[in-house]
């Protein structure tokens, strides 16, 4: 059938026209069969151009359109929308990428870039000629979200979703919610207490009937796709049932003979295998650390709620989407990095914050009174390419300035030395830096090429640096305590990353789909990321991103149904001999065997099919075809390209 095709070639405001001769492209395709009109646009995506294309479709009764512009990643949906609004089936639209593939790739060669653009547009026209109208499928979608991780971020995601009418399963791996925030005491920028913040949020979570909280819980299996995921969650036993009294908890912990390093205090103290919740951790119900517990039973006598017979339980859930809020870990310095693990007065900033919380009015570490503190910034951040983390951890300049102010306020006679690489107290955080400077703190600056040297002479420790701020002068100071300002790294979460297939960046944080405009979505439909698992953030930024993820996914699921892309595999049963090649090739288990008139043939489960096209090339009889990318379309495109 003959079609009337409209072709639009975009300048992209110079992004294309600087390196591709638009007039030549237009002239070269004008006489292609079925091409009815050819136009150029300054920005095809601008509203005025969209209107023009729309009215051409309506007035000229076009049967297909081709827009030669940027990557379909950017604008496929934009122009599908234009077609749809003008009454043309969106799948009669073809996007040709002459920006990334011609202009930008060959910016040194205008002739070549133009020739390539012409061929690409011709191939696009060939595809448009063979294009068919396709109808998208509607499927029911569960307005239910699994939120993974219950730090401040996860709790805010859950509360936001619940208040908008979405049902939430809040899944926390630890036995307590709260994440890292309760570990810090006073937090910036407004002097709130971390533990009080998590207490407020926990109360909000349990108050809402449409949030179900699981602690000690981990996602172990996932299948399905957006709108309809099926999950298996493993619930580790807490070994404590009910709500023991504070005294009983205390007695049981004292009775427990097994001591291990306390993670909450970053190993500065020990705790028992019978774990008590810290301030700001919830629920305030103890739990037994299975990996440390020897099952000696001492605690059972002290606390009747202990039940050592509990076992791992597995539950199944059905959800429409995920929001991943799995947070961060502080960077763990290597043995010997600035004396860490070798000198007895070198600790990390997270450890120092716990030390400050544990000391009442006098600052003492390892039995020694602390007066002079040297903070060494950017430990585990802003490293060289080959060494590791090239990124800045964002929170730490502010957190260290605040720490110095809090330390002086609480313990009085403190002198703070900040060995930094340029203070990054961005935005309103500048005021914290100002407060630290005003109280007389000393700031010295080093570069990666000449990092501070730590030396023990006798029982004294010295830090030496070439100070950029005093024209590179070599300065030395004595310090009672050295605090390594460790950056943020994402939590180790291989199982989760593997289950959800979330891509990570070079920095190992989860990667968003578009850094500027879609910071909480990923390339996996129905899997969103928020908080510090996406990049370092402070609490405010974590909360904003979490609530943004809530808004995004609620707006998708709230209608209770989704439309599926109609670009799905289709089987022609007459040609199919059930060789099983396609079902083996399909990565999404979308091909099933069925019987038609006694003949075994393949059948496509449409809600599983992603339209990846893995099945079509392996079929020996060409019985399976992909709508929107049919063999006929692809062959005609190849013909157009080969014409040169």
């Amino acid at each position, binding site marked *: 059938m003959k079609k009337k095709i409209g072709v639009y070639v975009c300048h*992209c405001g110079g992004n294309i026209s600087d390196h591709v001769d638009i007039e030549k492209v237009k002239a070269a395709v004008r006489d292609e069969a079925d091409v009815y009109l050819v136009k150029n646009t300054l920005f095809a*995506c601008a*509203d005025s151009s969209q209107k023009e294309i729309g009215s051409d479709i309506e007035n000229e009764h076009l049967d297909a359109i081709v827009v030669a512009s940027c990557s379909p990643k*950017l604008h496929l949906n934009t122009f599908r929308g234009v077609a749809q609004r003008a009454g043309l089936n969106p799948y009669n639209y073809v996007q040709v990428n002459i920006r990334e593939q011609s202009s930008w790739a060959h910016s040194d060669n205008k002739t070549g870039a133009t020739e390539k653009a012409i061929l690409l547009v011709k191939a696009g026209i060939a595809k448009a000629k063979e294009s068919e109208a396709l109808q998208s499928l509607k499927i029911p979608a569960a307005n239910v979200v699994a939120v993974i991780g219950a730090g401040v971020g996860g709790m805010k995601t859950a509360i936001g979703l619940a208040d908008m009418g979405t049902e939430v399963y809040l899944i926390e791996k630890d036995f307590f919610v709260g994440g890292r925030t309760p570990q810090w005491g006073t937090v910036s920028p407004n002097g709130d207490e971390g533990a009080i913040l998590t207490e407020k949020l926990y109360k909000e979570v349990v108050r809402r009937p449409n949030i179900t909280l699981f602690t000690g819980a981990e996602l172990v299996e996932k299948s399905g796709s957006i709108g309809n995921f099926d999950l298996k969650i493993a619930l580790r036993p807490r070994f404590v049932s009910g709500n023991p009294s504070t005294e009983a908890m205390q007695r049981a912990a004292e009775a427990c003979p097994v001591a291990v390093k306390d993670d909450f205090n970053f190993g500065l103290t020990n705790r028992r295998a019978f774990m008590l919740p810290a301030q700001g951790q919830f629920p305030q119900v103890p739990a037994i650390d299975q990996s440390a517990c020897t099952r000696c039973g001492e605690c059972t006598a002290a606390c009747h709620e202990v039940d050592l017979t509990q076992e791992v339980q597995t539950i199944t859930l059905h959800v429409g989407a995920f929001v991943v809020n799995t947070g961060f870990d502080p960077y763990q310095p290597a043995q010997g990095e600035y004396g860490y693990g070798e000198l007895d007065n070198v600790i990390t900033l997270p450890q120092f914050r716990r030390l400050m919380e544990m000391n009442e009015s006098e600052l003492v570490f390892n039995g020694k009174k602390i007066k002079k503190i040297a903070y060494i910034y950017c430990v585990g951040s802003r490293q060289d390419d080959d060494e590791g983390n090239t990124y800045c951890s964002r929170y730490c300049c502010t957190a260290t300035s605040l720490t110095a102010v809090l330390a002086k306020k609480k313990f009085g006679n403190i002198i703070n030395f900040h060995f930094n690489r340029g203070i990054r107290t961005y935005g309103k955080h500048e*005021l914290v830096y100002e407060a630290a400077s005003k109280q007389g703190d000393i700031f010295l600056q080093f570069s990666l090429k000449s990092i501070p040297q730590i030396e023990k002479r006798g029982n004294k420790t010295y830090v030496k640096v070439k100070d950029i701020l005093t024209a*590179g002068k070599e300065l030395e100071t004595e310090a009672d305590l050295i605090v390594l300002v460790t950056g943020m790294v994402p939590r180790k979460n291989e199982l989760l990353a593997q289950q959800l297939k979330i891509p990570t960046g070079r920095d190992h944080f989860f990667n968003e789909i578009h850094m500027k405009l879609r910071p909480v979505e990923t390339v996996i439909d129905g899997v969103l990321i928020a908080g510090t698992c996406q990049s370092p953030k402070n609490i405010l*930024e974590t909360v904003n991103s*979490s609530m943004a993820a809530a808004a995004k996914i609620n707006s*998708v699921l709230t209608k209770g149904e989704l439309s599926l892309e109609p670009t799905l595999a289709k089987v022609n049963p007459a040609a199919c001999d059930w060789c099983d090649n396609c079902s083996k090739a399909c990565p999404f288990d979308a091909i099933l065997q069925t019987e038609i008139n006694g003949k075994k043939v393949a059948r496509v489960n449409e809600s599983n099919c992603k339209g990846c096209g893995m099945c079509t090339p392996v079929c020996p009889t060409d019985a399976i075809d992909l709508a929107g990318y049919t063999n006929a379309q692809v062959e005609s495109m190849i013909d157009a390209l080969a014409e040169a």
Partner: protein
Amino acid sequence: MEIQQETCINESLYDVLVIGAGIAGEESALKLADMGYRVLLVEKEPSIGGKMILLSKVFPTLDCAACITTPKVSETARHPNITILTLTEVEEIVRDTKNRFSVTLKKKPRYVVEKDCTGCQECEKACPAIVNDQFQFNLTARKAVYIPFTIANPRVALIDIDNCLLCGACEKACPSNCIDFTQKEEQLKITAKSVIVSTGFKLFDPIQIERYGFGRYKNVITSMQMERQLAPTRPFNNILRPSDGKVPDKIAYVFCAGSRDHTVGNPICSQVCCMYSTKQAQLLMGALPMADVSLYYINIRAFGKGFDEFYEQAKDMGAKYVKGKIASITEKENGNLILRYEDIATGKVTEKEHDLVVLSVGILANPGITRVFKKERLETDALNYIRQTDLLQSPAITSIEGVFAAGTATAPMDIPDTIMSAGAAATETSSYLARLS
């Protein structure tokens, strides 16, 4: 204020009134509209898109700003649940007896019938009155009748009546007969169940810092002017310095202009200028391969995802970062500029000549909107940003119940942080609306 009944031309109820259609306002409006709420988006300028639509590329991805923002703009413009009013300001917001907000709006006349204008620009050609183009930050001129910029939305002409000679040339030239000098300012009354304030930021005006000579020395420009020169919809086809149209080859950036400075009343850091200057330096080195670009800074705030790597990349490309505060700028006869500064690396006061100086101007609060709230006070913080009364738990909540804040109306921030803040405001608003019903 008494509202006269006859001037009320429209009385309707919206779920949300969003004030300010920058990227923050668009994002909040879209999220709420996608959830099914009816949104009225009010913008005082003739076109939506805020500052972002005028930028060149964006750090650190170097995506073309126009390319990534126009889809958002058109999605907003054609969303069935969003009504947009441009050239409109809010006059008064007052809570009524039903716990809703009664809102009085003032819509300025365009003097062009919006629905009939085709954007053909015949009127611009005919108009004899020439004035500075504010959308090119005065780098070039426009006519009194004009389309704000190529990718404006709506792409419709308007008449700047203060500069119009009333000659009627456009009226004769317009093929669609849509010039209408009889249009009057209209007052509209609407009711909204909730309000989002997304009125964005103001740019620091460097005329306040006399020692930089902005306004006196032609070749001292602002970063926003440079942003326009680098944009795809740029006024010239090259980078030119204003005094003589020469292509500059020794360009200087002065960081923290109007930020981190108690003497101008803005003690905080503007959060984006280190990075946008680094971006401009990279674009300049691409456009003018022979040019020398020096950046005079105090500290580099390259803190976000991909930022430090972007800063390192600029250094690798040849950008010269000089740690030193600029004490003064003086002009030579040929228009070149002498920068005097303390070079921290050597500890010596040094002078250096450049032929173009770009001031990395800071971001300031834009608190004017607080005045329209009557009976209840929309509070601001010590820096004049909208006060976030429950900062760490619910950052979008303000001092007035049912009024929320998004984007740079609350603090300086870049585009992704603005998107997230706007998303948070949408969740907060939607939760509030659900509680109301």
